């Protein structure tokens, strides 16, 4: 593409400007602020800036503020003629907020206003987008730093650069790798979502047919689930069909069984009533016959029983008499026994009476002993003791030192006078008297009244002795013992008398004795017990037995009499029953016979009801099976196994085809990757070579190799073979401008290596030393041979050195 003419009615500070460009080199020469940049900006805007200005967009606002005439101008204008493949195109724009206009005029003269269409056509004509032009074709020297930075840092630009480098350098033949990759990924995504192609199963094995995803799956997963669903259905249908066959077989069996059963039941039902009647008649007949037999027996028995009854009655009478005799005997024996008891009682009383007499005799022998006399005796004894004690309290000791008398007598106390012999020392109680022939001496204790005491003593003593004699006891102890004995005897007598009373009770002894003497004991009688035994034996065993026997016989005869009145009538009864038997036998002859297999009508009845029960249970079973059958029939579904099988096979094939397709696409993806990585090694080679070549030229061999790695990082190598950092600050201005120009030209040439284009260079030579300027000029001159170069400068010298079409502004 080459620019032919630019014209503007008004654009920022310039108006009514018309510029003709020639092929090769064009120099826009003008002083600072003369509008060189404005013209370049206007050309750029005419190519890339849409006519409609929307101030709420910051880019548009900046554009408006920068280029719209202040204060009232409401539009700006640009007209650009350019040549692509030797054909003329025009693009004209009136930028405005309210009334934008634009068109693209094609070589055939037709004009297009539709913005979208214009942009599409423009892309085909310009080959690259706005960004690439802005950063590579139109970029300014003073913005080169940011431009380079953009190239280095901006990924979008890198992509563009990569892409156009790939298109151009790698000869992608117009294919966008990004789009191809996207296409491959999209296709794979569509096929493989939720599918594990390596293992050929759902990526989550838990989400198989029983728990499938409802959304977000790819075509393979979908086809797989469809196929599996059918497989499951197929399996199920097979089973249901088998079940159906099975159950229908069972139904047939129960049905045929039922038919057999029904036939048999029908056969027996035909004779069922007859057999039933037979079942009633036969026992009746049997019982009638039995009855005749019974009556005949009675006829024989009746007189016999009668005779036996009379006999038994006679026997009973005899036995009853025997019983009466025994009972009388029993009474007498009982009386004898009572009198024997009485006799014993009276003997006992006699004995007790004898004992009382003996006791009374013994009591009389005890003498005149009373309790009172014994107490009196005790008192007297006590008085003696007390008197003696008073004397003993006034004890006298007497020693006769000399006595000359052989008949000397002494009296000590109350004692009798005694003769003293050898003894000369004495003790005496209260009184001592010595009488000799010539002496009679009495000594009395002054402490007591001896005479009185002596008198008292003598009284007591005398009374005491008197009472002893009277009572005829030896002493008081004896008296006391005798008193005790007396009491004892009295008690014994009393007790014995009481026991006699006990024996006799209220009865009088003499009356009893009289009664006994008057009673006559039987001479020879059995023991009472033996008699009772005999009575019981007779009663229980003989009489009762007889009575029962008689009762039975009487009952029997009564029964017969009640039933038949008498033996004559009995014979009538036999005739009557016989006629009944004949009738029934006649009826029985008309009834169906009981089939041989049955032993009795009851057996028949039992068998028939068993058959009926069997039929009922069979029918129940059948109807249950039938319901089961209906259920299975409902389950059979629309399609037979065969129809489903065809469907399944088709689904399976579809699934397999999709899997195959996916595998092929995976293969393609890998191939693309492999190819790209191989080709990428050479991708940047032409650019690097071109860059290095330019750099070498510009820097006079100082910097040999410019290297650009995959990330598009710039590496500059100096002649000591050291890589310089790409950071621009490390480069001298001159070197920096040289690097920038070299890279830019290299990129530009790589971009447009097949087609001719234009490049805008503003004064990029300012910072170069004269030598490098010369080299740069050579570079630009080289460039203009292939492309259209638009160079802006304020320096007429530079313009002159470069030569070409000079456009003065």
């Amino acid at each position, binding site marked *: 593409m080459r620019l032919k003419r630019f014209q503007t009615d008004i654009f920022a500070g310039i108006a009514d400007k018309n510029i003709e460009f020639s092929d090769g080199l064009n120099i826009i020469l003008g002083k600072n602020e003369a509008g060189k940049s404005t013209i370049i900006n206007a050309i750029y805007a005419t190519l890339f800036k849409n006519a409609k200005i929307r101030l709420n967009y910051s880019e548009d606002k900046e554009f408006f503020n920068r280029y719209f005439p202040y204060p009232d101008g409401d539009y700006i204008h640009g007209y650009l003629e350019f040549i692509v493949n030797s054909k003329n195109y025009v693009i004209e724009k009136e930028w405005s907020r309210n009334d934008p206009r634009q068109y693209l005029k094609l070589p055939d003269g037709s004009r297009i206003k539709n913005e979208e269409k214009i942009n599409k056509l423009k892309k085909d004509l310009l080959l690259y987008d706005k960004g690439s032009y802005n950063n590579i074709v139109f970029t300014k020297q003073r913005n080169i730093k940011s431009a380079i930075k953009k190239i280095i840092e901006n990924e979008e630009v890198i992509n563009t650069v990569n892409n156009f480098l*790939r298109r151009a350098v*790698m*000869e*992608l*033949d*117009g*294919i*966008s*790798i990004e*789009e*191809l990759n996207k*296409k*491959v990924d999209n*296709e794979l995504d569509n096929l493989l979502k939720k599918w594990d192609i390596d293992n050929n199963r759902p990526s989550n094995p838990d989400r198989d047919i029983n728990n499938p995803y409802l959304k977000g799956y790819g075509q393979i997963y979908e086809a797989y689930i469809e196929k599996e669903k059918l497989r499951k259905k197929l399996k199920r249908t097979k089973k249901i*069909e088998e079940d*159906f*066959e099975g*159950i*229908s*077989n*069972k*139904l*047939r*069996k*129960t*049905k*045929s069984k039922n038919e057999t059963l029904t036939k048999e039941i029908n056969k027996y039902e035909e004779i069922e009533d007859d057999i039933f009647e037979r079942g009633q008649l036969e026992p009746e007949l049997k019982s009638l016959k039995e009855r005749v037999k019974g009556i005949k027996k009675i006829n024989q028995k009746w007189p016999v029983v009668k005779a036996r009854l009379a006999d038994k009655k006679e026997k009973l009478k005899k036995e009853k008499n025997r019983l009466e005799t025994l009972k009388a005997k029993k009474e007498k024996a009982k009386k004898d026994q009572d009198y024997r008891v009485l006799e014993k009682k009276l003997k006992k009383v006699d004995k007790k009476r004898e004992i009382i007499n003996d006791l009374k005799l013994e009591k009389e022998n005890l003498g005149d002993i009373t309790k009172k006399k014994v107490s009196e005796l005790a008192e007297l004894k006590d008085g003696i003791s007390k008197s003696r004690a008073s004397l003993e309290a006034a004890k006298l000791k007497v020693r006769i030192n000399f006595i000359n008398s052989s008949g000397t007598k002494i009296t000590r106390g109350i004692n009798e006078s005694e003769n003293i012999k050898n003894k000369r020392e004495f003790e005496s109680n209260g009184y001592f008297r010595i009488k000799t022939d010539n002496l009679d001496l009495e000594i009395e204790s002054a402490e007591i009244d001896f005479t009185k005491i002596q008198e008292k003593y003598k009284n007591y003593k005398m009374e005491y002795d008197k009472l002893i004699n009277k009572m005829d006891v030896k002493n008081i102890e004896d008296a006391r013992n005798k008193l005790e004995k007396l009491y004892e005897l009295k008690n014994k007598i009393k007790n014995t008398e009481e026991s006699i009373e006990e024996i006799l009770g209220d009865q009088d002894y003499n009356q009893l004795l009289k009664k006994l003497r008057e009673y006559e004991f039987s001479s020879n009688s059995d023991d009472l017990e033996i008699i009772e035994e005999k009575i019981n034996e007779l009663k229980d065993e003989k009489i009762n037995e007889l009575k029962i026997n008689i009762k039975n016989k009487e009952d029997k005869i009564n029964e017969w009499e009640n039933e038949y009145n008498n033996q004559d009538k009995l014979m009538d009864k036999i005739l009557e029953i016989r006629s009944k038997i004949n009738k029934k036998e006649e009826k029985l002859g008309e009834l169906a016979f009981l089939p041989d297999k049955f032993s009795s009508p009851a057996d028949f009845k039992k068998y028939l009801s068993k058959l009926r029960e069997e039929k009922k249970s069979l029918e129940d079973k059948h109807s249950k*099976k*039938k319901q089961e*059958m*209906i259920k299975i*029939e*409902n389950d*059979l*579904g*629309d*399609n*037979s196994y065969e*129809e489903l099988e*065809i*469907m399944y096979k*088709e689904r399976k094939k579809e699934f397999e*085809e999709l899997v*195959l*397709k996916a595998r*092929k*696409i995976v*293969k*393609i993806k890998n*191939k*693309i990757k492999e*190819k*790209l990585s191989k*080709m990428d090694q050479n991708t940047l080679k032409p650019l690097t070579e071109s860059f290095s070549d330019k750099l070498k030229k510009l820097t006079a061999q100082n910097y040999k190799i410019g290297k650009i790695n995959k990330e598009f990082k710039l590496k500059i190598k100096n002649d000591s073979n050291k890589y310089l950092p790409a950071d621009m600050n490390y480069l001298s201005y001159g070197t920096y401008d040289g690097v920038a120009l070299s890279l830019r030209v290299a990129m530009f040439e790589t971009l447009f290596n097949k087609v001719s284009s234009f490049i805008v260079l503003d004064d990029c030579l300012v910072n170069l030393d004269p030598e490098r300027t010369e080299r740069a000029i050579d570079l630009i001159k080289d460039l203009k041979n292939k492309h259209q170069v638009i160079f802006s400068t304020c320096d007429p010298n530079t313009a002159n050195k470069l030569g070409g079409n000079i456009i003065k502004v």
Partner: protein
Amino acid sequence: MTLKIFHSGDIHIGMKFNNYPPYIQQKLIKARYKILDTLIKKANKKNANLFVISGDLFDKHNIKEDEIIEVINKLKKFSGDAILILPGNHDFDNGGIELWEKFKNNMSGKIVLLNDFREYDLKKFDLDVSIYPAPCDSKHSAENNLDWIKNKNTQEESPKRKYEIGISHGAISGLSPDMTDSYFTMSKDELKNLNMDIWLLGHTHLPYPFEKEITNRKIFNCGTPEPDGLDCDHSGNAWFIEIDKEKNINAKRITTGQYHFYDLEYKINSKKDFENMKNKLLKGKVENKIIRLKLKGRIEENLYHQKEKIYHELSDKIAYLKINDNDLKIKITNEVINSEFTENSFPYKLLNDLKDDEKALQIAYEFIKEVKA
């Protein structure tokens, strides 16, 4: 008297054709009922005495009663003497099948259900004919049901009726495609030894013998009167058989059926191939054609992009057309790659690398073409 038999079977009432789109599916379902009318009409026109269905009148057992009645009503229109229905393996009767209970409850006096292994005497229809049926009593069976006839023959009773006709359903060995040998297979010799005057068989959807008209053959397979699937790519058929008093047999095969199934494969390598195919497919009653088309071949890209248009032209006219053109591809030759892509360019290298794998090559080519455009 000449006995005239109209012999059909394998009608498969109740097939659902779920593999087809609804519009054609309904038509296919209905066609199976309609064919009964057609058959009865033809039989009436020929004054047939017997209308025989040798199995698989129904496709399955769960047929609704009103559908059964519809079938019976159609059969009732037969103006001959008797209609003989034999249960086949699809509609087998083991004595416990509701379908046949319902059928029996609704059928008229003229219809005889041959579901017992016994001789059916057609005297009551004024026909001097005995029928010896071998009905199916299960879906599959390795044994056929001819035994009872064999046993009967050994008893050597003198024939009761003039004509003795055997009717059976199952595969004929050497003739029917029965890989598993589970469809009551019988051999022709086995049948011949049973000394029937004629055997009327069903099961195999192709008719036997293959001739259109034939005399003095004893074994006949009716084939289906209405083809029911792509494995059945022939017309529908039925037999009209006459047996004269000398027991000479004269049989004519009658072509029947509305729909014709075609499972076709075409090799397409040029526009001319496409044209030829188109002409062939559009010949005849296209409105009754059910076609599965498999296309194979390599064509130029331009033609390849026109294929959809050709398909549309066909689908618009043909009752149902299903195309599988997975094997119809753009012809990608070295020349194509060389002319379309610069030598050693990325697509050039990629496609050359995939040359050994044609399927991958095709896909890659299409992708590249798409992103190039």
